[in-house]
């Protein structure tokens, strides 16, 4: 029954994909619209519409995107100068920034969240700051970061750090604060030290909530890195997209969009997997 459901869902997914690609292919095929006649408008000249006759709308057909994707993925790590690096290198830069910023945030947010969660006093004292700092768009920090840090790469990492810290901090504090009193009493009646209680009772009890916070954080970090790299430039998938837009290479842009989705999915799936390891049924 379940496998049957899975099978039908897969078929339906594939049908949707085929329909989508078909519509896309038809919409961008040169035959659909009459070939353009006469003078090119100023816009068309600027957009290169006069020279590129392969596509009527300027948007590449799926076949073009796939053949481009194939050639990019067959040599993902080439490096031919600052403006011409393989997609693998660009993604690696972005992943490196995300993981570094995320790890630094986790290093601070989880212990701090633990302390905040265990102390009602700190919980109340920190709350107004967290509530005000949390909704700030991480990119709003960028100018300040650039001015203080004076390094665009580190500033991008800082932006990732600042956007990943809040969900982890809030979730850790919440998870720790809502550990069942029964379990804390078990620790007390067994004369566990504070440290042992933290590691053998509170941490496993709060781990699923903490991991959920980490999962939210890495999702946000991956959303933010593209925008941050568009601003700071140089390397990374965000910069790559912006660069290809400047080159009017929309096939590369679409290819990069798909790659961003795939990497984001993999990051999320790996944390979902980690969450499974610490989850417990109550």
């Amino acid at each position, binding site marked *: 029954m379940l496998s049957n459901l899975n099978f039908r869902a897969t078929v339906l997914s594939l049908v949707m994909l085929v329909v989508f690609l078909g519509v896309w292919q038809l919409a961008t095929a040169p035959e659909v619209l009459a070939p353009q006649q006469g003078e090119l408008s100023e816009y068309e000249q600027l957009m290169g519409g006069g020279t590129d006759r392969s596509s009527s709308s300027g948007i590449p057909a799926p076949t073009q995107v796939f053949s481009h994707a194939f050639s990019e993925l067959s040599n993902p790590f080439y490096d031919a100068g600052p403006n011409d690096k393989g997609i693998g290198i660009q993604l690696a830069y972005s992943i490196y920034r995300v993981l570094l910023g995320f790890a630094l945030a986790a290093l601070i947010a989880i212990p701090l969240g633990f302390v905040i969660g265990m102390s009602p006093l700190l919980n109340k004292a920190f709350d107004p700051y967290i509530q005000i700092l949390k909704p700030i768009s991480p990119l709003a920090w960028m100018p300040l970061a650039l001015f203080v840090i004076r390094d665009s790469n580190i500033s991008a990492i800082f932006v990732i750090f600042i956007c990943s810290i809040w969900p982890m901090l809030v979730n850790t504090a919440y998870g720790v604060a809502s550990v069942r009193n029964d*379990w804390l*009493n*078990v620790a*007390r009646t067994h004369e*566990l030290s504070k440290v042992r209680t933290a590691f053998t009772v509170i941490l496993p*009890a709060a781990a699923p909530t903490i991991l959920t916070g980490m999962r939210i954080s890495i999702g946000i970090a991956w959303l933010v890195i593209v925008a941050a790299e568009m601003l700071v430039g140089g390397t990374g998938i965000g910069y790559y997209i912006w660069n290809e837009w400047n080159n009017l290479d929309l096939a590369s842009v679409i290819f990069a969009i798909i790659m961003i989705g795939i990497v984001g999915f993999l990051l999320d799936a790996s944390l979902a997997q980690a969450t499974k390891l610490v989850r417990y*049924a*109550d």
Partner: protein
Amino acid sequence: MSKGFLEIENLSQRFPQPDSNDLMTVFEGVDLNIEKGEFVCLIGHSGCGKSTILNVLAGLATPTDGNVIMDNKEIKGPSLDQGVIFQNHSLLPWLSARDNVMFAVRARWPHWSKAKRREHAERYLKMVGLDHAMDRKPSQLSGGMRQRVGIARAFAIEPKLLLMDEPFGALDALTRGVIQEELLKIWSETHQTVFMITHDVDEAILLADRVLLMTNGPHAQVAESVKIDIPRPRKRATLHQEAAYYPIRNHLVDFLVDGAKAMSAKAQEAAARGDDPRHRPRIFNPAQPETNPEPGPRMVRAV
């Protein structure tokens, strides 16, 4: 009065009330001794402070007045000398049954090797009949099995005093009966001192050497200490054939139906007069009423 193993001296608990400056007295003047190896049950209506007394004995709550001395040492906080079995099992859900017991064993004897801890834990799990389910997580166990793990965990640390707060309250009647007999079996092997709260009169008669009866709150007191004069080993199936069973049962039920309330009213009058609330429970043996030191205000109903 001879010094007992566990001495509860003039224990009182008062809580501030939300819209009054007066304190609300839950119970007061609770004064009793428990001997080593004794099985004592405490019965009373909801809200009379039974659980608070148990929490004080566990060291999880601090009384407003009075103190508790166990083995010549005052109880000041929770410790491994007092094992607790809560109503809602309170097992750690991320650990298997065996690991839950080993967790406690490790806290008790930190220097034991892992193999020794494991062997010790498995011995107690076998005593409660869980040999086949030691690797299961609490979520994979039935309610009765979880409570058994809780019992194994509490007995495994070999505490000086075992505290149980309505341990079988959440179980169905059949399971309860089975576990009660298992509890009796372990208790007869280990001779723990047990203090247990229950709502169930039959459970108290089956298990206890002595049943403490508590009046209703506020100003609740432990009014009587009823001796359960039925020889051991006791069996659930044949308990009602014992001559002493019905006199004891009637006495306990009478108390719960009328006595608790009437005596509570008296206690409140006394409190209003400002009498010293310190009160040692009247010792009573329903099986041999002629031996009782003073006649009670209520008659024991004939069988």
